[in-house]
């Protein structure tokens, strides 16, 4: 101890250090308790949020799997009383409508997103705001719009459905594209520009490839969202009990089957509705999980 030569004046710093340490020590138990309580509360709310989610998946699986017979996947929808009905026409309808909507929406949304990311200004602000508002528009309104814009003139058709679904997907795609492109470090762009490249070349050869994982993820999520929509289809594709892969004619789609058959008093039709629900849920799940896996894979590929 004698080796320690302390500042012989009163030492406010040591004094304060001691005071603060005492208070910190005294409150550490309380703070730990708060922390534990908070963690428990978080877990409880997590459970509250996740339990219904898992319940829906499990319940749909339990109810729907019985409908998955070979006929379910190969036969068209049949009226009550006729056995061996399936949803083949609805599968094809959803596929064709989804494909058309995707082929139009993804490039269009991507270009708009690219514009939003690259050009700042009033117009960009307006477009971004419009896209945000459109994300929040009730889907039945989109259906009514599709009905008025296309169906009243050309009649019910798969194309009208694709148009309505596309309107649902477009704002999602725009924001996903913008986010993905904004995620590319500006230094990469600068490096390209410093090599004497024009902005278009830099965008095409440097920015877009770098943003690809985000773009793919965003596209798949937009598709997943689009194919699950019911209301826009209700007013545009009408539904049909016949096999039809021609999008200019009325088509059937999985959400429509679920909607129409689940309210029927006949148990075999309700069973088909459950099966269709399971199929649609699985498709959306595969798209969601697939987009994550793919994004992770592409990300790792780059490093």
């Amino acid at each position, binding site marked *: *101890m*004698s*080796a*320690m*030569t*302390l*500042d*012989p004046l009163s*030492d*406010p*710093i*040591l004094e*304060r*250090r*001691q*005071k*603060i*340490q*005492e*208070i*910190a*020590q*005294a*409150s*550490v138990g*309380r*703070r*730990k308790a708060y922390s534990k309580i908070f963690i428990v509360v978080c877990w409880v709310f997590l459970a509250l949020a996740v339990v219904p989610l898992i319940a829906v998946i499990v319940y749909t699986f339990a109810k729907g799997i019985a409908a998955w017979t070979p006929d379910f996947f190969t036969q068209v929808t049949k009226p009550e009383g006729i056995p061996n009905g399936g949803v083949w026409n609805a599968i094809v309808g959803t596929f064709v409508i989804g494909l058309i909507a995707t082929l139009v929406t993804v490039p269009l949304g991507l270009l708009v997103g690219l514009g939003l990311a690259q050009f700042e200004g009033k117009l960009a602000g307006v477009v971004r705001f419009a896209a945000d508002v459109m994300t929040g528009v009730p889907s039945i309104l989109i259906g009514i719009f599709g009905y008025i814009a296309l169906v009243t003139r050309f009649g019910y058709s798969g194309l009208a459905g694709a148009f309505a679904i596309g309107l649902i997907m477009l704002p999602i795609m725009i924001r996903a594209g913008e986010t993905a492109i904004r995620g590319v470090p500006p230094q990469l762009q600068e490096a390209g520009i410093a090599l004497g490249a024009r902005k278009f070349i830099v965008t095409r050869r440097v920015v877009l490839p770098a943003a690809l994982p985000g773009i793919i993820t965003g596209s798949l999520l937009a598709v997943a969202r689009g194919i699950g929509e019911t209301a826009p289809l209700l007013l545009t594709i009408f539904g049909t009990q016949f096999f039809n892969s021609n999008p200019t004619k009325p088509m059937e789609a999985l959400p429509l089957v679920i909607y129409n058959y689940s309210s029927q008093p006949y148990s075999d039709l309700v069973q088909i509705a459950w099966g269709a629900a399971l199929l649609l849920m699985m498709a959306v799940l595969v798209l969601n999980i697939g987009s994550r896996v793919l994004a992770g894979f592409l990300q790792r590929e780059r490093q």
Partner: protein
Amino acid sequence: MTEQLISTTAEVIEDDVDLRQGTIAPRSGTQTPVMRLDDVSVAFGGRLAVKNVSFDVYAHEVTSLIGPSGSGKTTLLRALNRMHDTVRSAEVFGTVLLGDTDIYARSMDPTLLRTRVGMVFQRPNPFPGMSIYENAVAGLRFNGVRKKALLDEAAESSLVAAALWDSVRDRLKNHASSLSGGEQQRLCIARALAVEPEVLLMDEPTSALDPMATLRIEELITELKDRVTIVIVTHNMQQARRVSDQCAFLLMDDDRAGKLIEFGPTEKLFTDAKDPRTLDYVNGLFG
């Protein structure tokens, strides 16, 4: 008279020990270790980033960690206040003593440890939305201090120590974001000092600052020695030479893990290093 003073202050120290405050280091004088690193290794996801580092950090001195990027300076620094606890894949091996307590002991609460071993980061990171005053006393508030008198006292004392008091005393209620980069960094130093830590860790504290602001921080570091023990990571060898008393030179080994090559008084390391690699590095031949 003097004898009596010394004996009373010595009693204060003993009281502190009794209060389990840890060993409170003397304010000046002989080289007493406050922290001892014994065979410290840090691994991320099973890969060693720093291996087998041992040295002592002496009280009221500045110890600098130098070495090229990847040599594990920052990783080692963050092992000294258990910042690696927040990284799931990180593991720390060996012993780090603060006084005579093992900071990785089960009985050591990491939050209490960090009130005793503070940290300042590369980029100034004052809390947004908090005033200058609130930033300065944030650590006290987080640790349950409510008494206004103590908060005010600590705020003033730490801002004075960080050479910021004179320029901010009339605008303590202003947002911290109204300060310049150098002032923000000094506010962060004040924030770290306000809880009166025994050791202050500084992770390249001037790397985001201009030369003038850097100079002020360096002057500050020397002034602060009286108050705290400082461990500083710097990529700037001249800075290490200017501010530190002891210097640890780390280098990446063949297995890509940082290793302590040499530790000793800074002047000796810069003029008369034992290891040729130290000599080459401080002479700017590589790194």
